[in-house]
């Protein structure tokens, strides 16, 4: 019986492998990069999208009366907010009102507004095409807003990162935006991944390792400890956005392991942030806080930017490059070294 059905079973396994494995590999591919889940709305395209109140002549059915006035003409500002300066209040005459319909205020400047969450009181840096375009300080609720204008219409790659209260830098959150000339694009839902640090670089098997970092206050942190089997621990951050877990390493095998974390709040979720490695062995070794200088910082100015790129470009495919420039230590400066630098970029 089994012998008779074996060919059919093998046939089905083959078909399923063709269909399912590529799907599985796609799912894996989608989850590896640090992709931003952001919402982009365009102020100036005539469509009212959250958080816009209006857009051009489209008032979304609102009027002066719906805004608490008794009459007048409601219009829309260049920031896609209601302009009630021509609305009137008080009982004056019959006021049949007439005419009008919200005037269109031409949107001349091309700009992008960024709204998101980082860490309470942290400095948030915005990169436009890999160069610093703006910085701001997040509020105590970790929310931030930035606005850049004077752009041309075209495709931009924007990135944001932040530093927590210990000076630990987040991963770079990157999102492409196509900007239309004469409009304002509103980007909402930017949610920077939590920072993460461990208190030990090596931990004796059976002891605990502290995994901690910072995110948005009252957010749910999911900490992944990657071993043969992946362990997940959840923790709610305190009012300063800090989280800490003491992970019992008795469940881990001797050897190298990794941990990473992500945050969730009100249905919004970050990608996993930086990956931290630690060793489960026979002794405890205290881990220093991550250095401010990092890989790719060739001139040791605590940042990875166009200066470092230029130093590496000078040595591109030249013989005997300095060890500090040859990031992967293969004796030459080639595309791989630039890729490593691009990963650690700070602008």
């Amino acid at each position, binding site marked *: 019986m089994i012998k008779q059905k074996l060919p059919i079973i093998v046939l089905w396994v083959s078909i399923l492998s063709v269909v399912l494995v590529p799907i599985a590999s796609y799912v894996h591919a989608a989850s590896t990069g640090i992709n931003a889940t952001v919402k982009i709305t365009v102020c100036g395209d005539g469509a009212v999208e959250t958080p816009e109140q209006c857009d051009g002549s489209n008032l979304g059915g609102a009027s002066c009366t719906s805004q608490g006035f008794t009459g007048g003409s409601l219009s829309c500002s260049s920031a896609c907010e209601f302009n009630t300066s021509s609305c009137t209040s008080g009982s004056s005459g019959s006021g049949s009102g007439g005419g009008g319909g919200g005037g269109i205020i031409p949107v001349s400047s091309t700009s992008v507004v960024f709204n998101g969450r980082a860490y309470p009181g942290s400095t948030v840096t915005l990169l436009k095409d890999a160069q610093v375009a703006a910085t701001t300080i997040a509020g105590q609720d970790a929310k931030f807003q930035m606005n850049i204008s004077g*752009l*041309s219409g075209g495709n931009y790659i924007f990135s944001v990162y932040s530093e927590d209260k210990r000076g630990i830098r987040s991963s770079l959150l990157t999102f492409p935006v196509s900007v239309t000339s004469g409009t304002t694009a509103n980007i909402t839902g930017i949610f920077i991944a939590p920072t993460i640090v461990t208190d030990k670089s090596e931990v004796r098997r059976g002891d605990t390792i502290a995994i901690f970092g910072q995110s948005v206050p009252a957010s749910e942190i999911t900490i992944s400890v990657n071993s043969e089997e992946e362990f997940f621990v959840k923790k709610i951050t305190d009012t300063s956005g800090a989280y800490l877990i003491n992970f019992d390493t008795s469940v881990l095998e001797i050897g190298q392991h990794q941990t990473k974390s992500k945050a969730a709040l009100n249905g919004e979720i970050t990608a996993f942030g930086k990956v931290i490695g630690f060793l489960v062995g026979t002794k405890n070794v205290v881990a220093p806080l991550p250095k401010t200088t990092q890989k790719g910082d060739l001139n040791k100015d605590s940042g990875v930017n166009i200066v470092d790129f230029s130093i590496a470009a000078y040595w591109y495919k030249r013989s005997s490059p300095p060890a*500090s420039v040859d990031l992967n230590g293969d004796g030459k400066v080639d595309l791989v070294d630039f890729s490593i630098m691009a*990963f650690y*970029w700070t602008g």
Partner: protein
Amino acid sequence: MSTKIKIILLLLLPTLFTPSFVFAAEIRIDSYKAEVKIGEQFVVAVIVHSEKQLNAIEGRLVFPEDLLSVREIRDGNSVINFWIKKPQSESLGGIVFSGITPGGFSDPNNFVFAVVFEAKGEGAAAVTLQETTALRNDGAGTKEPLSVHNVNIVINPGDSNARKESLSDTAPPEDFTPIIARDQNIFDDKYFFVFAAQDKGSGIDHYEVKEFRFALISFLSQWVRAESPYVLKDQELKSRIVVKAIDNSGNERIATIAPRYPLSWYDHIPIIGILIVMLISCVVVFKKIWRRRLP
């Protein structure tokens, strides 16, 4: 087991290993025209598609030089932020390119650059990508398997009216901020400065630099064509530095760096002296001319 089923199974079994041959990334050449006439211009674009985040790509675009000539290379609006090797026609043939995108990019249809070709001979022109490499944004520069899709253009005998592929770009390059730096690993620890402007239209063509200490006679300093990094002539950093980014349509954007160490009053003595000498010379010449005119 019947022979038919055995054959089907034998054919399907290799597909169990399909995942190792699945390309997660693709680099391709797009052309709106499959057939052109001699003298006609057409655009081919290099496009990258990837499911995983990439941050570095390189390659060589090869074409038959007896059939096609390069009229223009456009990298405005490119997904690449910094070119290690800006796409340019090489003397050995082809267009070599290499660049990075800090933070990475994914998703379909990422524009890298475009080439405006002019057909100059009859035949089938294969425009191909060779020696292509794409690296993941993973901190280790892991190679991403890349499938390559080339394009074939058929060139037919044409009419005398060559059709141009023109691009209207009146917007100047975007604001940019040059940075002065020095590093013991390059230029013998001399001061240099770096710059990179973006242009969303036709792309940056070149940069020009001017250094001067005295604003009054800045017209005497010449604009010099420059590439980043640029070694400063004034290593005392007392000069004002002006950088001009010029796009492929001739639009300009100027960025200025103020002198790090502004001139002291006594630094102006030589220039004041020269001005006084020039003034005295003018007065003397004027007097001589005036006396000659007197009866």
